[in-house]
């Protein structure tokens, strides 16, 4: 079983501990939701796991392979950053071919949301259009684990719902760790929820805990999750 295993992850900024000896385990076919207040270290955590941010200590392993840097994580772990990352001046169809295998490119070339954008360049797309291209590229990449940092940034509610359903449909072959400012998206999508506060990670075993923490209103909880 090629599980993603994160252990002993510690990060400090100016002697302030942001992440303290974090442990997290994730499996293929599972979506792990990461919630926490602004500045709690969610994005930093994902960047450290991906390998673009340094940490005081970290141990990341997928199956038997230890991930120390970006090259180690090739075809194993991909990351969707908060901000748009596609290069400008290149057609979307070319970017898809560069990023994905032939088989996966063909899937995107037939996608109803992508077809109208194929002949446009990245800088000619709206923020929401860029985001859907990026999310679909990452979801279809040849990798085992995907880290999604604020995937619904700038996305319309219809597209957001489409992406949520799409991730649920595609989760069988990959493991996901997801964070989003709109906590309900994460709560709705995730199989397990982790709460990051003061550098520590706490597993949410019952969604009623989210009401106490202020991430769900009592009404939403009663109407949606308590049944």
């Amino acid at each position, binding site marked *: 079983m090629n599980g993603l295993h994160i252990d002993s992850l510690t990060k400090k900024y100016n002697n302030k501990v942001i992440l303290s000896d974090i442990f997290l385990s994730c499996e293929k076919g599972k979506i792990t939701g990461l919630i926490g207040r602004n500045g709690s270290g969610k994005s930093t955590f994902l960047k450290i796991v*991906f*390998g*673009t941010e340094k940490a005081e200590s970290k141990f990341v392993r997928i199956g038997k392979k230890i991930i120390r*840097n*970006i*090259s180690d*994580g*090739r*075809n194993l772990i*991909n*990351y969707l*950053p908060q*901000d*748009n*990352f*596609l*290069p*400008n001046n290149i057609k979307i169809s070319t*970017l898809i071919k*560069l*990023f994905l295998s032939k088989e996966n490119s063909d899937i995107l070339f037939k996608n109803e949301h992508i077809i109208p954008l194929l002949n446009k360049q990245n800088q000619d797309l709206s923020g929401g259009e860029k985001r859907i291209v990026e999310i679909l590229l*990452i979801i279809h*990449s040849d990798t085992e684990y995907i880290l999604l940092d604020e995937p619904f940034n700038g996305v319309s509610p219809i597209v957001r719902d489409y992406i949520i359903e799409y991730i649920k449909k595609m989760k069988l072959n990959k493991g996901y760790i997801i964070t989003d400012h709109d906590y309900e998206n994460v709560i709705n999508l995730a199989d397990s929820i982790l709460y990051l506060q003061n550098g520590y990670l706490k597993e949410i075993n019952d969604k009623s805990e989210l009401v106490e923490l202020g991430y769900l209103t009592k009404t939403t909880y009663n109407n949606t999750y308590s049944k």
Partner: protein
Amino acid sequence: MISIVIGILLGGKFSTIGFCFIIIAPIIQYYVYEIKHKNEYYFYYNLGLGNLELWASTFIIALINLLILSLI
């Protein structure tokens, strides 16, 4: 393009254009990727290419250019 123009302004020898490429290419990469569009690095990171590989490829391509232009 900028390397070719500067190379021509400096005398137009092929080897001079090659040397210009070695200097200009890293400067442009630094400006475009480190300053202006830092986030675009994630496109390459997701392909498994780190900063070291990307910078190394810039220098290697520039050196190959210099070698070819010097041999002409």
